[in-house]
């Protein structure tokens, strides 16, 4: 196995996994919250909100990365604030890569979850309320479990996107081996090198296999959980 990849490639694989997992896990709560707002909220500016969420999908990744750099860089307003208040630095760190991946996958996650939430029969939530469940309890015991297919789809989509994302990542946090060089950054470098195609292909296959694993896992969970709940 060891011979299959160079040490740097192993590093990239490990880092990519970490970045993707953290990106997905950290964005999930926000994703669910935004999906609830989109699916249920009726407030002025809802369309604008929806548009903002879709932004990272429309903008070329490099632009997104550049905007992240402007905002979350050490000198950017949010970046400076985070640094001073919490000592959190994103620039040139793997955490920044995770942020970039999270942002890029966010619209995918939100849309999938919102779709599932929209499909929920709200009369079930009413039934829960008559049984004494407050808003939060209804959300946790009825809405969330019934939105599971969308949540899983959202996780898989944004995980896959995180494994494939590189434009925003490299622009925001560079491509530092061991810190921010994820699989796609490594692939990109390889592709730009004459004769690097073979290695690029090997790494691509790694990505694909990993996200295939995520897919299989998510489908297994979905099958278990929704076995008998489909109307």
């Amino acid at each position: 196995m060891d011979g299959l990849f160079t040490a740097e490639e192993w590093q990239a694989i490990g880092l990519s996994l970490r970045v993707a997992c953290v990106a997905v896990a950290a964005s999930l709560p926000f994703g669910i919250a935004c999906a609830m707002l989109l699916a249920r909220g009726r407030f002025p500016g809802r369309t604008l909100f929806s548009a903002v969420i879709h932004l990272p999908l429309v903008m070329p990744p490099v632009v997104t990365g550049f905007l992240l750099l402007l905002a979350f860089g050490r000198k950017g307003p949010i970046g400076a604030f985070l640094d001073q208040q919490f000592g959190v630095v994103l620039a040139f760190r793997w955490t920044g890569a995770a942020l970039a991946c999270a942002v890029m996958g966010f619209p995918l996650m939100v849309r999938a979850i919102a779709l599932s939430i929209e499909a929920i029969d709200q009369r079930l939530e009413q039934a829960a309320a008559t049984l004494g469940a407050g808003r939060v309890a209804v959300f946790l015991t009825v809405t969330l479990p019934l939105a599971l297919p969308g949540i899983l789809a959202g996780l898989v989509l944004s995980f896959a996107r995180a494994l494939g994302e590189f434009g925003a990542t490299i622009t925001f946090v560079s491509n530092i081996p061991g810190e921010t060089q994820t699989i796609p950054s490594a692939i990109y470098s390889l592709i730009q090198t004459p004769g690097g195609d073979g290695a690029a292909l090997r790494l691509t296959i790694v990505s694909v296999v990993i996200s295939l694993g995520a897919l299989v896992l998510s489908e297994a969970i979905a099958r278990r959980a929704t076995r008998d709940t489909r109307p």
Partner: protein
Amino acid sequence: MTLTFEAEKRLGDFVLEARFTSEGGVTALFGPSGSGKTTIVNLVAGLSQPDRGRITLDGEVLVDRAVGVMLPPSRRRIGYVFQDARLFPHLSVQSNLSYGRWFGPRAGRWGDFGAIVELLGIGALLKRRPLDLSGGEKQRVAIGRALLASPRLLLMDEPLAALDRARRAEILPFLERLRDEMKLPILYVSHAVDEVARLADQVVIIEAGRVAAAGPVGTVFADVAADSETGAILTAIVHAEDEIDGVTLLDHPAGVLQIPKLGRRLGTRVRVHIRARDIALAVGEPGRLSIRNRLAARVVAVSEQMSDVAVSLDVGGEPMLARVTRGAQRDLGLAPGLAVTALIKAVALDER
């Protein structure tokens, strides 16, 4: 318990504009399809908000548009058995049943899980998912779920419509016990007159979004008797049990009533529902008949209906309505003031 209801609500072309008060016990909402029964129940549960109006339960304001109060459903402690069962598809039957227990206050909890499950005959279903249940099974689980949340008021929207007679006959006495022993007030929507007459203390008749009549069950049903089935609702006292014949004897001012064994304590006051169709009239000695219940009565009024004749009677001070054919009225010379015997088949009382 006192529920005061006064609300206006527009839904498309339909307008509900109803006002009634319910004083504990079972209040039946009765009315044709589309008349607004479910709309009323939803307003009480807090699932929809009236355009105008005020609903209070035991003095607590549930909703009052004038002052902008709207208690959320989860804080009303009002159980609701929906017209469609609305079970949680992602939870097992067991978890559906105990759902309300997770949230309700521990204090004030009543109802025993095992007992309710057994009564509803759903013990074998506990591990199942709602999706595979039959129509009647779903409805039974829904009843159990609402009860196990220990509500202080129970809303039931045609809860027994999907059930067979045998199952109904088992559940009705249980609801009676809830009413009498647990003092659980119930707002009960039903099309079945016998169910309503048996359970309800009060009836609110809804027609096209308005209250057409409201009041104690005897009065209301006698008022609307032209097309109703109710002949009388008599109050009597349990007087003796005849173990050999398997009957209970009830004392009524107009005579003794025999009904299938009740198993109630002697001296208990019970209400007996008699359908108009189960009442025959005799003038003079009736002869040797299998009909055991014979109450002395006096004709109060005779009114010709479309298809038959409604004869209003006074039976020991309580009103009774019998329906006879025109031919019978002629032959017997039924007219106000005439003394007659009301003949009531004992076995006809078994489900009141």
